[in-house]
């Protein structure tokens, strides 16, 4: 085939274009170590990466929700522990019976009852935790009357997973008997030196304690599950980061090899071009 000068120059032009494109590609890759910047770089990989990035973003949100839910439930757990301790203290007062210092005992029980009302109105960040979804106002008044509702507020901790972050106060404080009324009756029975009634109260406290312990266990399980969920989210996030790296990222070694290859090819092309272009029969015509 006859080779014209235009063909030769055109070929060299294309070869330098390709070499420069390869150099630019290697340099760009070196600047951010990315194989996939735009979808067109690798549509299949990019489609997966888009889904993974979205999931990663959502996991960040669910992780924050999980931490917030844990904080709420830990506050509830603390409050329930105090309720449990308070009930034990009340039971001790009932255990001593009305034998001596009845008035002192009765006053102590009344004071504990006030504390119980305060615990029942536990709040975090202006949010009442024992009012169900009525979280803006104290669920119990001084008489122990409940103004919350019987539905728990829930936090979304994953695509299809919610967890209760408040409790139905009515179930907690009146589920096994109206604790506020019980304490009020106990104080009255202590004052009235009604031994039989006080002894009966003492016996009933086992049920109350079991009830509160049961709810604590329920909250504890929720907390445990949230912890496990948090661990799962962290592990999934790590897996996503790894998969994204596999899909999108270029390794430094691979990129440097690419850069070396492209610059070597460029140098070879330049040297060859110089030799070819610099020669012509005209040089030998004297």
């Amino acid at each position, binding site marked *: 085939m006859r080779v014209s000068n235009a*063909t030769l120059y*055109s070929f060299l032009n294309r070869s330098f274009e390709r070499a420069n494109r390869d150099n630019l590609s290697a340099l760009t890759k070196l600047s951010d170590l990315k194989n996939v910047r*735009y*979808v067109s770089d690798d549509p299949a990989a990019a489609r997966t990466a888009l889904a993974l*990035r979205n999931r990663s973003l959502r996991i960040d949100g669910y992780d*924050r929700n999980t931490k917030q839910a844990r904080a709420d439930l830990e506050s509830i757990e603390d409050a329930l522990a105090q309720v449990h301790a308070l009930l034990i203290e009340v039971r001790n007062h009932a255990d001593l019976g009305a034998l001596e210092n009845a008035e002192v005992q009765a006053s102590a029980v009344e004071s504990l009852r006030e504390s119980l009302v305060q615990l029942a109105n536990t709040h975090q960040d202006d949010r009442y935790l024992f009012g169900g979804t009525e979280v*803006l106002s104290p669920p119990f008044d001084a008489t122990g009357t409940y103004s919350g509702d019987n*539905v728990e507020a829930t936090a*979304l901790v994953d695509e299809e997973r919610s*967890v209760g972050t408040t409790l139905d106060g009515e179930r907690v404080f009146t589920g096994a008997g109206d604790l506020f009324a019980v304490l009020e009756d106990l104080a009255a029975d202590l004052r009235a030196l009604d031994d039989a009634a006080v002894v009966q109260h003492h016996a009933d406290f086992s049920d109350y304690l079991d009830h509160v312990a049961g709810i604590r266990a329920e909250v504890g399980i929720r907390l445990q599950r949230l912890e496990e969920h948090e661990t799962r989210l962290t592990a999934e996030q790590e897996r996503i980061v790894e998969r994204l790296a596999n899909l999108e990222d270029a390794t430094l070694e691979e990129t440097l090899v690419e850069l070396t290859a492209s610059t070597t090819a460029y140098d070879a092309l330049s040297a060859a071009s110089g030799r070819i272009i610099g020669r012509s029969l005209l040089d030998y015509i004297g």
Partner: protein
Amino acid sequence: MTLISGYYNLGLRALDAAQYGLSVAGDNIANVNTPGFSRRRLELSTGHPRYIKNGEIGSGVVVDSIRRMEDQYLQNAIQLEYGRLGYNNESLRGLREVERTLGPVESNPLLEAYGDFSNAFAALSGDSESVGLRTAAIAAADSLAGEFRSASGRLQELRRLEDQRITGIVDRVNSLAGELQELNDTIRTGESGGTEQSAARDRRDQVLTELHELTGGRAATSRSGEISFHLPNGPSLVTNDNVLSLTTSQASDGSLRISSNGTDITDDLRSGRLGGSLSVRDDEILTRLADLDAAAADLITRANAAHTSGTDLAGNPGGALFEPDPAPASGAAGSIRIATGIDVDTLALSATGAPGDGGIAETLSRLESTAAGALGTRSPRDFLADSFTELGSTIARRDVDERVAQDLVDSLSAERESRVGVSIDEEAIDLLKHQRAYEAAAKFIQVLNQVTEITVNLV
């Protein structure tokens, strides 16, 4: 007996032929880098012989012509391929601009804003009365609407830029069409006298190549050698004596339309650079805009349906979360905004009326991942990701098409060049050849001189 002057003429013709040869080689060398130049070749033949008793005596060389080398088949094939290359090249450029407008994989603004919107309402699902989280959710909703508007606006701007490119291409096509007709005239007039109009033919080939690249049209040669040019699907641009210039006008939607001889041919132009630019403007960008509009309309419809079924912190029923409500049939992405009156107090996130209930917030947070009939039973997340992937796949395919077309053009051009291109080495050999021929002819005349002198001295 041959007259000595006859031999002088023979020598003179030989000198002339060598000079023509040098001149042609010089012209070829001078045009080695001239685009579209086809090398010329000196066509020589033997002069008419003179017959003598026992044979014939040659009368030297005759310069028949200086022929322009051409290969019409290859030239036509290259021009056709230029149409394909122009289309792929132009549409690839436009598609890449669209892709860059929509954002990189690592941080796609729209998908990120939708994710932030979902996260903000997911956070409210468990703490729906929180003023801080409500403020953040309103900001996220506003940001999502803003990203829809921004993406839509950028695509609309790209359409306007494509219109400017199209105007430029149409102007160039008209200018080339006028030049083609003038070149047809020049060639017809010039060659009626029998002289090939090589320079005009070179230029005409270039004009035709560019017209093919710009429009992807077809050329046809008449018996008289004139070339007419037709746009894809029929309309003529240049006929024997006429140039039917393309005209542009603005449609009611503000987009540019192209007409030929009063007929709107915009939708028929889908090849060459013009077709590439039009396909980006009318097919690709409009498809992306339609997808954005569908996703935005779905957001407006479903978010508003959820929000209006909820109650705010004061127990009042919720209104629309986004405007315009209802979503328009088209243009939702360009007009979506958070509804007037939405603030931390009026955000209606409770499904039961209780302030701590975040049922509506939960619904809003799940919109992104919930399949919607209006989106082909895909979730907005998948719908948008699929739309971006579809665009990316088109670009990847077009990239391959462009490389194939470029390789084909290169290969055909190299083939054509092998026939008509200038080789400096070859011309150098020609220079030597004609130089030697000139020297020999001169020597011949010198010998004639000596012979003549001897003859004169005999007298």
